């Protein structure tokens, strides 16, 4: 499983079928590369975007932190 697929897999647990679209949109918006070219450093940065953007969709801070922490773990693992 590629890094990108692992990221999609984690975010899918929270955003379901919207996850892949969300990741591609975030990468398009912030990086000049395709989502498939994500590196571990990018995923660490993405964890922070997730923390702030998912917080706009839910009041459940624990869930948002859990998603961001899983991405952080992926970037450092």
């Amino acid at each position, binding site marked *: 499983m590629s890094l990108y697929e692992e990221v999609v897999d984690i975010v899918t*647990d929270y955003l*379901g079928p*919207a996850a892949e679209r969300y990741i591609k949109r975030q990468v398009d918006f*912030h990086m000049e590369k395709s989502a498939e070219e994500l590196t571990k450093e990018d995923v660490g940065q993405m964890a922070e975007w997730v923390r702030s953007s998912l917080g706009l*969709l839910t009041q459940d801070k624990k869930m948002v932190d859990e998603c961001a922490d899983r991405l952080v773990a992926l970037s450092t693992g």
Partner: protein
Amino acid sequence: MKKVSGVMWFLLVVWVIYAYFNLTSPIGDNAFELTSVQLFLIRLTIVAPYLLIWAAALHGANKLSDYASSIHDSHDGKALVHFARGLHVLLAGMIASTLLSTFTSRWPEFASTIHRPLQITLNYLYVMFPLAAYALFMLGVREFRQVAPKMRALTKPILPILVIVTMAAAIFVIGVFTNDEREFSLEGQATYYLSDMNLVLTIVLPTIASWLLALYVAVNVWSYQIEVKGTIYKKSLKKLSLGLIGVVVASIVLQFLISLGSIRLIGLGLELILVWIYVWLIALAIGYVLVAVGARRLARIEEVEVGKVNGKEKS
């Protein structure tokens, strides 16, 4: 946005015409011996909510359509495009049948000369629009299955669906064929003006098929909401699912009431008829409002960027 507003204005004009013709229709048989003031007030309590329901229906279907169009390349987007089209078809059928029904009440003498084709057309409107809408919903369910493959394993609801539809179909068939005025009427107007064979092939079977489709769709939409991944997505989807199921159930109830025929409906008594109508109107309005709210919430997921939702900065 301008396009939606234009359609809303058109809807308002259609409703004003409908309201005027309905409220100025002659009293007719006056089966419940109401005064003209009582009749006017009762009509008003039905005519007024129609505007809210039509507006809620159009708003809900448009919201869903907008959201589905924004993600049309994905399977869930394709599914919701079918659902949005189905909701538009249901709304079109509801408006067309309401207008035609009002026309026959407003000009009873003229309508009586062409009552046979009018009644046949009205019956087909009641049957064919929902059938077409549910068929579109089925296409949507097929796309949902690509997103949540576990839905394939959900075969258990089939049996309860068959039991419920069989029972409803039995009551419906008995109701239709114990109606002595189904093809001819010596005193008034017949209910269907169709031979038994045509009645079975073009009204009874399509109606039963539409109920089967509708319940199958309702169960599958709920199954999708349960099986699809994504904690935040599921919460947003729940309102949309409840709304779609509400609209489907409300349209089944309407078809069932219509199938009773006017004589049996009058036999229920004024209070019971009004209760059924109001419950139906409220259920339908809530269903469409939930569709709009659900679509709006799902759209937020597609719009969210770091620090903003729908172009607005987080406060």
